[in-house]
């Protein structure tokens, strides 16, 4: 295939389905005249007006910073605790009910509690984000570690590969396909929780702005914010995929490999 041909295919694979969805949306909004479903053109206009302004600095960047901080915290906690729990059946038996207990508590009701402990500043929001992101990472890490190949772990035991280097060379790498799955899940959950955390004790941020638009019945602006969230998720996912390709190159070569 030649260069342009390849570029066209690429654009088609990336943009084909979204374009189709926009068309459906246009048709629907034209037909229904629904106040809550403005036409795509109107939303695009609102998007330009709303987000190409100092809002980027005031609302989007602080949100992103909190998101990354919360995510990083969740990765550290999730992988760390996940490895420990995955390696020890006893620890797992003891910790699982407690973890499940917290996992089942909806973040909106957890927020007041976190506020008691961490105040109402950025720290609270970072904690809220981390408290939601951590679950898919933790669960996947635990399962990935439990599923390590027996012959490989025997090999490590035989050759005295222990402690940190066992962790590095066997446990983390062996579990990495599943850990990556968890990290990926957590990324979008992080965005969701970013919005939720900004619904409480907040006066800036992307999520806050969206809620404000919603309460002010500025529906096109609200949808433009949701659109921005989606775009943000997509960009982060692209970055993530690059990382994943590097980390899991051995895996896709070995398996049927299409992740």
């Amino acid at each position, binding site marked *: 295939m030649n260069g342009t041909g390849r570029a066209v295919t690429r654009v088609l694979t990336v943009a084909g389905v979204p374009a189709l969805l926009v068309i459906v949306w246009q048709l629907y909004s034209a037909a229904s005249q629904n106040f809550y479903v403005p036409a795509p053109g109107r939303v695009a206009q609102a998007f330009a007006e709303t987000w190409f302004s100092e809002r980027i600095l005031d609302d989007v960047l602080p949100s992103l910073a909190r998101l990354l901080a919360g995510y990083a915290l969740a990765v550290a906690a999730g992988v760390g605790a996940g490895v420990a729990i995955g390696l020890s059946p006893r620890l797992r038996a003891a910790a699982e009910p407690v973890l499940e*207990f917290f996992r089942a508590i909806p973040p909106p009701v957890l927020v007041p509690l976190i506020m008691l402990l961490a105040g109402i500043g950025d720290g609270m929001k970072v904690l809220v984000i981390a408290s939601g992101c951590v679950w898919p990472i933790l669960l996947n890490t635990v399962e990935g570690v*439990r599923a390590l190949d027996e012959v490989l772990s025997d090999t490590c035991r035989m050759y005295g590969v222990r402690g940190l280097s066992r962790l590095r060379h066997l446990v983390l790498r062996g579990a990495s396909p599943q850990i990556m799955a968890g990290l990926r899940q957590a990324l979008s959950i992080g965005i969701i929780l970013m919005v939720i955390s900004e619904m409480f004790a907040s006066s800036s941020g992307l999520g806050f702005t969206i809620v404000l638009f919603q309460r002010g019945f500025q529906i096109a602006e609200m949808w433009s914010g949701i659109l921005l969230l989606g775009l943000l998720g997509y960009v982060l996912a692209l970055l993530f995929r690059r990382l994943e390709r590097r980390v899991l190159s051995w895996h896709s070569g070995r*398996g049927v490999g299409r992740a």
Partner: protein
Amino acid sequence: MRRGIGSRIGYGAAGLGGLLVVMEAASRLGPVDERFLPPASEILGALAAELATAELWIALGETMWGWALGLAIAFCAAVAAGMVIGSVPGLRAATHSTVEFLRPIPSVALIPLATLLFGASLGSTLLLVVYAAFWQVLIQVLYGVADVDAVAHDTARSYGLSAWSRIRHLVWPTALPYVMTGLRLAAAVAFILAITAELVIGSPGLGLSIQAAQSAGAVTTMYALVVLAGLVGVAVNVGVRALERRVLAWHPSVRGEAPV
């Protein structure tokens, strides 16, 4: 095996007990004010009182019904979609942008749409629950499908297994551990969304009770209901774990735990 289960319960109870002690100590001795986070003993007392009322059981029933239905729909849809997207070459790439775009959109942002379509009814709750839980399972399925062993895959192809048989006998079992994790993730997320939907939209259920207690300043009752939510989560997990032990008996993560 008996002994295994017994000790597992023992450890689990010890873990929960430890949590209670910490909570009790935190509010009695120190960092948080008793009025804002009552001691565990009081919360449990209030929970016991709540459990004696019929409304609570009705509310819990409503929540669980929305949860179960939403989870079932999301799970089936996601597994089907994941299998198709993961198995048909090209489809994964074509849907990637859309999936990644839709996935991080918070369910809570869909509330206007939900109320618009369904009002404060079960439909709204379902929309939110399904939307949130769907992606959890889908992503897990996609990773699981990508994990199929090359030799096993070749084996299936060379023995002329049809596409459907390959999915059923090779792809599905390979993806199963991922799917089970997805189910556990989705079960919790669906439960959270069921409650959140009730909190925010006001459809009846446990979330509404929490909201009522909260806006009345009844802190102890509110935490009692939150604890109840957590306990439901524990129960759901016990169920999924039991299921997992059955369907994944062949898998290293499960067979490694049989006493040697």
